[in-house]
């Protein structure tokens, strides 16, 4: 396989006595949807935080196009073309969709007015409408505050923002958790389309069928380490759950990092239905 766009090698992150990541590895490739799964507390959020510049790793390396980088903050990562859609969407509810799309990188007018920081609202609105249209979303009125939009539309605003600016990697943290069936399908379709543009898409999700349907590859975290990297086409829900819960654990991190194809049969089948219930359609 080609060189990864974004890679974590042996990342360690501690919060006091809690070792959230204990030498975690991860790789995202161009044009690929990779799902990052793991049980609660496995270190998914911490790993995403480290890779998107929110958290600084204690040990280990982050490589961007094969070269080591150090993100001083999320802006740094964004400048490198790495965008994140946070689970809470991270929108300014009182601002309209175009202002949210350009939050922190507003377009200003040309000339003296621009020097004074006067915004180019028409251009921002035009770009925003186009960015939403790409996701198949039509905003009736792009000037209403985001708070007045439906949950699905808000989600689209957050996704559109990340996709519009990402040219390397997009992290999507539980992007469909709050969505209804139709909107969920649309977001997954978008995920696919973004990857087809040559961007690496990292999908953090609890929903196993969803993971298997949209991802090319699945990386499994357990206790702060990568325990498996599986091709989605060759794996099953049982296998993923086995890796997540440790019944498949090889124990050795170095060994686990090189594990690409999983063993044919898990040692132990999980007793209960592993898949979390998809959330109800939002009101």
């Amino acid at each position, binding site marked *: 396989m080609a060189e990864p766009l974004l890679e974590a090698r042996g990342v360690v992150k501690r919060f006091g006595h809690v070792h959230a990541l204990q030498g975690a590895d991860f790789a995202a490739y161009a044009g690929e949807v990779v799902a990052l799964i793991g049980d609660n507390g496995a270190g998914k959020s911490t790993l995403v935080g480290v890779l998107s510049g929110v958290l600084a790793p204690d040990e280990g390396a982050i490589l961007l196009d094969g070269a080591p980088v150090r993100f001083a903050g999320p802006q740094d990562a964004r400048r490198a073309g790495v965008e994140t859609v946070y689970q*809470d969407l991270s*929108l*300014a509810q009182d601002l309209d969709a175009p202002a949210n799309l350009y*939050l*922190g990188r507003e377009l200003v007018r040309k000339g003296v007015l621009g020097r*004074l*920081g006067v*915004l180019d609202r028409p251009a921002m609105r035009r770009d925003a409408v186009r960015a939403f249209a790409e996701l198949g979303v039509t905003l009736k*009125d792009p000037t209403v505050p985001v708070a007045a939009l439906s949950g699905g539309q808000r989600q689209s605003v957050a996704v559109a923002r990340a996709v519009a600016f*990402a040219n390397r990697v997009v992290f999507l943290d539980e992007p469909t958790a709050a969505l209804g069936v139709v909107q969920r399908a649309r977001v997954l379709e978008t995920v696919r389309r973004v990857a087809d543009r040559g961007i690496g898409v990292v999908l953090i999700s609890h929903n196993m069928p969803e993971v298997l349907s949209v991802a090319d590859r699945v990386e499994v975290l357990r206790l702060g380490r990568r325990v498996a990297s599986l091709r989605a086409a060759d794996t099953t829900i049982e296998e993923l759950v086995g890796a997540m819960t440790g019944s498949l654990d090889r124990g050795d991190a170095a060994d686990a990092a090189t594990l690409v194809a999983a063993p044919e049969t898990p040692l132990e089948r999980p007793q209960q239905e592993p898949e979390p219930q998809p959330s109800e359609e939002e009101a």
Partner: protein
Amino acid sequence: MTTTETGRPPHTDTVTARTPPLLRRAAGVSELWTFLILAALVVFFTLAAPGKFFTAYDLTQIAVNAAIYLVLGVGMTYVVITAGIDLSIGSVLVLAAVAAGEWNIHHGGAGAGWGTVAVCVVIALVVGAAWGALQGAVVATEKVPPLIVTLGGLGAALGIAELATGGQDPADTAANNLQNTLGYGKLLGIPWLVILAAAVTLVFGLVLGTTRFGTHTFAIGSNPAASRRAGIRVGAHLVKVYALMGLLAGLGAVMWLASYGTTSIAGHSTDNLKVITAVVLGGTSLFGGRGSVLGTVIGVFIPAVLSTGLIVIGVQQYWQDVAVGVVLVAAVYIDQMRRRTRERS
């Protein structure tokens, strides 16, 4: 900078924004309701006291009374939009006035020249802005809520002013040059105080409504965490906003000295409440994220019109305090209700 994608199909045509009917749009603007209240008051007093209210004299008087509160209100609008509050403005005004006044006393007194006047103005502005920036820096640490930071600032600023003066308003704090121009002077019949306040309002209204600085102010009040993730330097922005508030309190000190010729150390303890009332009446949300300078203008004029109007129709003007109090609580109640229904949708 534009988006990084170049190969996008231009399908703007299919998704052109539909503009909602003008009326519905207007009804959604919170300033409209406050403006209607103000208009109703003006109509009421004009009918109740024909030929007495709404004379040029009354208007001028209302505007002069409102000028300083308006300048303070503009700064407070920014602070409240960041979901903050500044209780210290009255004390900061006094401190700036005392600092400028002391310089004036020792550099010519009432007969001081223009050079002294200029230095006094700069001193008042710098003292105000520095005090505000200091409070903003503490607020930006997010360890102490703005309410407490500025409550402490209220006491400390007033205490320093009283230490410097022994608690008595000193004489000769304002030069005649300042009083005869900014204080009583007029341009085409409009007092300079009013022109200054209008200019400040216009400039900072535009900054809030049309610039990146304004947008970041709203964003921080809306969602500080999201603003930080979006690369906005939230702490630095808060320092600027509180410094702006302090700067305008310093300008208020200059206007006060020009208008009344004294520091009035004991006379500013309720400035904060009056100004916050005006800002909230104007539709700015105490919970941050929403508001406008235009609304604050209306909010400043409601109490001003009420007190003048009540005097003109011969009702005890203390009713004004009762009326404003009731309207204030109602305004916040409505704001809360709107927020709830919005979040439920």
